[in-house]
């Protein structure tokens, strides 16, 4: 069953170094399609590191690999992913008159990909 969580795309060091290699290279694709989840959420969703999950928002969906983070480092109910094409798939285009689409704190439905 899908569970609703908050997705926080952001910068990471490996995203920064891999984009210098090239955005069409495998390393960048791998980094930007790996999402971090709280370890307790992972257990509850019966996920282990390397499993695939589907993230679905009101405008799109994407499949990413998951990786666990300790309870102290990432609150339950939150997912972190480095910015990249997969996170853009989930972003709505409305900018509320600012030019800025909501790019963080997106509500997404999470399901395990079998």
């Amino acid at each position, binding site marked *: 069953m899908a569970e609703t969580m908050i997705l926080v795309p952001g*910068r990471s060091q490996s995203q*920064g*170094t891999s984009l*210098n290699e090239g*955005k069409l290279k495998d390393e960048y694709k791998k980094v930007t399609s790996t999402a971090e989840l709280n370890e307790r959420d992972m257990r509850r969703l019966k996920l282990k590191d390397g499993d695939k999950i589907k993230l679905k928002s009101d405008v*799109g969906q994407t499949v990413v690999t998951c990786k666990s983070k300790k309870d102290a480092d*990432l609150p339950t109910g939150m997912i972190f992913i480095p910015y990249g094409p997969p996170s853009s798939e989930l972003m709505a*285009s409305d900018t509320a008159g600012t*030019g800025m689409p909501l790019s963080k704190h997106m509500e997404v439905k999470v399901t395990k990909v079998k």
Partner: protein
Amino acid sequence: MTEATQTEAQAKDQVKDKKPAPKRVDPNAGKNVKIVKDATCTFCGCVCDDMELTVDLDEHRITKAKKACVLGRAWFYEHTVDTRPAVLIDGKEATFKEGVEAAAKILVDAKFPITYGMSDSTCESQRVTVDIMDTINGNVDTTTSVCHGPSGMAFQGVGESTATLGEVKNRADLVIYWGGNPAESHPRHFTRYAVTPKGMYIPNGKKDRTVVLVDVRRTPSTPVADIFMQVKPGKDFEVLWALRALVKGKKIANDIEKQTGVSREVLDDLVERMKNCQFGVLFFGMGLTMTRGRHFNSGALLSLAADLNEFTHFVAKPVRGHGNVTGADNVVSWQTGYPFGVNFNRGYPRFNPGEFTTTDLLSRGEADAAMIIASDPASNFPKAAIEHMKKIPIISLDTKDTITSSIAKVCFAVSTYGINTGGTVYRMDDVPITLRPAMESTYPGDQEVLEAIRDRVKKLLSGKKARVAA
């Protein structure tokens, strides 16, 4: 030990003492290298200008970047000789002249041409870009609109109590980072400018400063902070407004912790620290601008900094991303009066975020041609915008292949600013810095390409202005 053996041993020691120290092996011996001192890294907005680069002139690459952070090293080491064609039209190799002709025609024929990007480009190139759009009555926008654009709106609304990073280094005894993770996005922000360096009035470096980090999650930046304040996602505005109220001695809601995740005690402690410091600074990141509230979040933070000047000296600075995104704001402001999202359709500049910002123009399907400079919106814009990009002619100028360059009708491979080409960039605190390039490239700089396009555009228009919208 006999006297004889003793003397022998002493003699051996003496020989040992006289033995010359082993020679240091010069790793560059026999190589055709060049050292570039005080070079500038243009990867992030820190624009560190104290690099020492070792350039292997035979292999045509930078082999060492002294003082560079992990991101800077990747920036310098990964920009090497490329083999991709300098110009592609519809995916087929073309000459420079053909590329310029095709690009100029696209721009002149379009009814609503736009340009976007520019933050990884020199001020000189940005100036030419604005000139082109002014000539064809097009639309100018930069990556600022999806970065600190909301902060740009907030600056206009509430003003900015500001300082250079030099002032922060020399004076700041309270450093607050809000909604950012500099350890991963701007690694030397801590070590060169704001946390560990010793300053004129901060003789003991970090020991003389209190560092506060505010974020929705712990990050690699958290260990640097003396105080970590964890806010519930989407509640930054509420926390900032509560801090403003407490600074002014007003009451706040009793359930503030339930609402925001931050206790009253933590807020009171921070207010006391802010009011009693000698020089406080609020650095803020995209945790404020990309979330619910956007410009209201930035405005609340800027207002908090302004309020605190009734008690002490307090400043606020956005932590900017790409190497010259601050330059883009400056250049577009000099030339049009506005920092981003500027439209020339009526023959004079108009500023309206939401109307003339690129995400909106593309998502609504309004733009009918786009010139993208040193940016990759086809990979990081919302889906609707990317879908529209696939329907219109794109002109792309970039140092590397990207998704945007792969869908471009006309694609120019250009050299890298700061590594291959000189010029001016602005550090995130609006300080201009002159670049010292390390080595030549086989590709032209974006300024050269843009000047050629501009000259051809002006020729195609034969001195006349482009059409003006009704």
